[in-house]
């Protein structure tokens, strides 16, 4: 094992890095969007019918505890080498994180706000979209940030079965005893996660204008 760095490798591989980065972003963000799309209605159902919430929680927690590599391998039989082999398990992980946040977020809407909306004549649907969901945004986004960062880190495991992303740099580096691609892969993964996190924070600010004005006033 050597300290054989060869930094010039980076300059000659910008294309490859871009390609892997694109694949990685796709494989990491699709599960977040899918997970959100599923956890919103699911969370709503759990708030509406509280009795199913413990069941949903138990199920998703169990699935969350499964090692990702095992899930990927089991799925190869059904989804082959397409991105779905990685996206489906990561969606399940995202779900496990987000359902709790959606439910907590919806439940965090203060009663007096809800009652005011009813008093103003808002229908249930309008209440949901214009009052409850926006107020749940901070809590939901806290979960989104955790899930996004976790996904970005987990996608690399897919390269252990040949499904690409930045993880390919790790497999290649290990096979050739070559630290440079590994370091580049780690740096890019963390950079991607930090930027995604920042983007979500900004999006959250954008979606909750009242939090902005409160800050400006104080």
């Amino acid at each position: 094992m050597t300290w054989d760095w060869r930094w010039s490798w980076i300059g000659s591989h910008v294309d490859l890095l871009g390609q892997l980065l694109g694949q990685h972003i796709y494989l990491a963000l699709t599960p977040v969007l899918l997970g959100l799309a599923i956890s919103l209605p699911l969370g709503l159902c759990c708030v509406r019918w509280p009795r199913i919430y413990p069941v949903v929680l138990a199920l998703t927690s169990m699935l969350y505890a499964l090692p990702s590599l095992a899930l990927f391998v089991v799925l190869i039989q059904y989804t082959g080498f397409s991105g779905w082999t990685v996206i489906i398990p990561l969606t399940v992980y995202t779900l496990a994180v987000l359902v709790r946040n959606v439910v907590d977020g919806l439940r965090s809407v203060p009663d007096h706000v809800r009652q005011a909306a009813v008093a103003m004549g808002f229908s249930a649907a309008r209440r949901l979209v214009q009052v409850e969901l926006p107020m749940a945004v901070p809590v939901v986004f806290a979960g989104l940030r955790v899930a996004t960062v976790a996904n970005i880190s987990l996608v690399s495991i897919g390269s252990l079965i040949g499904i690409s992303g930045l993880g390919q740099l790790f497999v290649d580096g290990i096979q050739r005893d070559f630290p440079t691609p590994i370091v580049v892969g780690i740096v890019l993964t963390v950079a991607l996660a930090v930027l995604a996190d920042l983007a979500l924070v900004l999006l959250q600010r954008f979606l909750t204008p009242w939090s902005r004005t409160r800050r400006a006033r104080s």
Partner: protein
Amino acid sequence: MNSRIRTTVAVAGVAALMALAACGSGNTNPLGSGSGASAAPGSVVIGSANFQENVLLGEIYAQALEAKGVTVKRQFNIGAREIIFDQIKSGALSILPEYNGALLAYLDKTATATGTSDVDAAVAAKLPPELQLLDSAAAEDKDSVVVTSATAAKYNLKTLDDLAPVAKNLVLGGPPEFKTRTQGVVGLDKTYGIQFKEFKSLDTAGPITVAALKKGDVQAANLFTTDPAVPENGFVVLTDPKNLFSSQNVTPLVNKAKINSTVSGTLNALSAKLDTTTLAELDKKVISDKQDAETVAKDWLKAQGLT
């Protein structure tokens, strides 16, 4: 950090990452060719096992075919044959760089054929109808059991027969699949009566196995005969008089429905030019000199007039 700066940094950073991704993504479809479905006619999917030489061979095949106008999708570093074979049988993969003897041992645990043409014929007899072997190259890369020169000196080891009496004091290292293969621990016992004290799963004849051998974590290891680490470290390859590892010519395995005559013609022409010395040299460039498989493949194909 005030929010203005934060916003600028975020936007700039996201833009930079997107630019990097865009200039690289080009035509790549990250989703691959659908849920395990095969590529469209006129295009092929080349797979490879999870070690560098096989990735290099896959890349050589890929570039040779691309030069003839075939669209190629690369699916490298999947895993061991135990995982990949089903994928080419189903058509998810079209072409694999295989080793005829190892493939035979996988298909038929009792096979005893040696010599390239015998092995090829035996494989052809055992292959499922969807699959076919193309022409074998002269290049061979065999599994072997190696020891350090110190160990060889200590126990006076030259051939695998010499290993039988002392093996119970030694630990063997290799890829996980070596333990259950006929051309592996199982065959070493059956053919040579070799039983090691313990088997340790390492990597597929890569740096981890080399390090373990050098360090003494294992006293014998499964490495490949074209691996530059063997000459570089003075390892001793134990000879195989009973031909357990038979012939191991590099041979393209194809799914008949997924290829056409252009593909087979190109690959056969390529195989005709590949011999063991060349393969060892190419391996050295990738593994020791850290050159890219793509560059090494490109240079060699050009020098051979195949592109």
